[in-house]
């Protein structure tokens, strides 16, 4: 029982990271109708920036988080501006190939700048773990912060979209770009804001991920990126609650599979579940034919 709880909680924590990444995928898809496959690599850049500030320069961890978020925001807007914006109206295949190109560009740039050897990321979270059930269940501080962060992000994002003018503009652009323009909404600006938010979230995800799994290299973001993308599809791409639930379910299945079935087969099981869900419900868990997309 105690070990099950431990696996479950670390699964929730891993799932929370997937969820934060999946939010970026799903928001960009909802607004720009494109799959930003470079999103996973923004996570890696975010982690490197935090590593530089916190471990190399020895500065404050909060500062590391803020600088990393700012750097990723600028990176996200720049990528959108240079690589994706000129392709507005191009076929989705062209955009997809460009996104894969951007992904390789980021990975190789990181390889060039930071070197091929993997860095050991020092966790930014350093308070002591919490012990439950007389010490048989130990929850690490990173786990707690990760779960808390994902809850806060989810609430903040939902509030932002439902209560602010910009959030409503995002919903409008996601539903109908032409009609949104007729409302006076600057579609390009709205798309840029979406990339900015998604990328800032990617920075947080990168820091949380590397705080829990400390090996940092140029390909660190690739696999979590793909899994988070899967989570977004699983939950119903374009749906914010879907991304959150998809991420959590993926993380829990992955961790429990590792613990009870086979750590080699865990990924196969996760993707197997995705295939089954999509066979039964092609639009994903929360996806409707006409869904609330952002």
């Amino acid at each position, binding site marked *: 029982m105690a070990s099950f709880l431990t696996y479950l909680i670390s699964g929730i924590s891993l799932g929370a990271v997937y969820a934060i990444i999946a939010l970026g995928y799903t928001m960009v898809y909802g607004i720009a109708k494109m799959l930003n496959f470079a999103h996973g690599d923004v996570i890696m850049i975010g982690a490197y920036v935090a590593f530089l500030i916190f471990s190399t320069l020895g500065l404050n961890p909060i500062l590391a988080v803020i600088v990393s978020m700012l750097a990723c925001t600028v990176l996200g807007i720049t990528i959108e501006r240079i690589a994706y914006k000129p392709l507005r109206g191009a076929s989705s295949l062209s955009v997809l190939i460009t996104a894969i190109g951007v992904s390789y560009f980021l990975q190789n740039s990181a390889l060039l700048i930071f070197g091929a050897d993997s860095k050991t990321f020092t966790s930014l979270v350093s308070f002591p773990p919490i012990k439950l059930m007389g010490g048989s269940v130990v929850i690490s501080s990173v786990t707690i912060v990760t779960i808390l962060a994902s809850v806060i992000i989810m609430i903040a994002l939902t509030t932002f979209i439902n209560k602010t003018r910009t959030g409503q*503009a995002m919903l409008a652009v996601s*539903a*109908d770009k*032409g009609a949104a*323009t*007729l*409302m*006076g909404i600057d579609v390009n600006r709205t798309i840029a804001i979406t990339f900015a938010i998604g990328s800032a979230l990617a920075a947080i995800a990168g820091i949380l991920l590397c705080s829990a799994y400390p090996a940092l290299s140029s390909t660190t973001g690739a696999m979590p990126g793909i899994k988070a993308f899967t989570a977004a599809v699983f939950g119903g791409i374009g749906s914010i609650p879907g991304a959150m639930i998809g991420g959590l379910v993926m993380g829990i299945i992955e961790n429990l599979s590792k613990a009870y079935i086979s750590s080699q087969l865990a990924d196969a099981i996760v993707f197997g579940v995705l295939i089954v869900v999509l066979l039964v419900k092609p639009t994903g868990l929360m996806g409707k034919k006409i869904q609330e997309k952002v």
Partner: protein
Amino acid sequence: MENILEIKNLNVYYGVIHAIKDVSFTVRQGEIVTLIGANGAGKTTTLQTITGLIPPRSGEIIYHGKSINKIPGHKLVSQGMAHVPEGRRVFADLTVYQNLMLGAYTRTDKAGIDDDLEMVYTRFPRLKERVNQPAGTLSGGEQQMLAMGRALMSKPRMMLMDEPSMGLSPIYVNEIFDIIRKINEDGVTILLVEQNANKALNIANRAYVLETGRIVLEGDAKQLLTDPQVKAAYLSE
């Protein structure tokens, strides 16, 4: 009266297809001007070009004495131009209220927005009853009212309306045309595109007849109603 909108020798292409051919017309302050014509004559294209959704190949669009060819579509709303698009294009997943507030997106005068929201509710009582309902659940006529109310929320000086009566039951059609007339009486200049030429000519001051991208006839709306050419082509009901 002063020209609020002036279109000069407009040419629009879809790829190699020459959709709008050397079209020129004017709309004066306070008028209802209607563009009538068959399906595919270029009526919708003309409106979409004016509001910047489609770039023209050549020609000039002058609004309040200034060329707006190069102005991106989203900036025209704050200059007082609202476009009620063909097919209504309400945001189906959003509530009636959210749709109306998106109409006021460019405005920051909170008190004015509240006043106009009341004005829209008074003009369209049915929208007030359905204020928290997703727009997609409204009937076609109600969606048309929402699209018009949404446009009114931007406090326009000029409204472009694209086929407001399309697909509506006869009762709704009459209601919609009454509303258009009232909006105009309140001082909003209207450029109306319609397939229902009879209704459109009845409420309009002047009219232009479009045929395969070209203006073939223009004049006083009431005179066009009795024009044998127009009668034969567009008023055979």
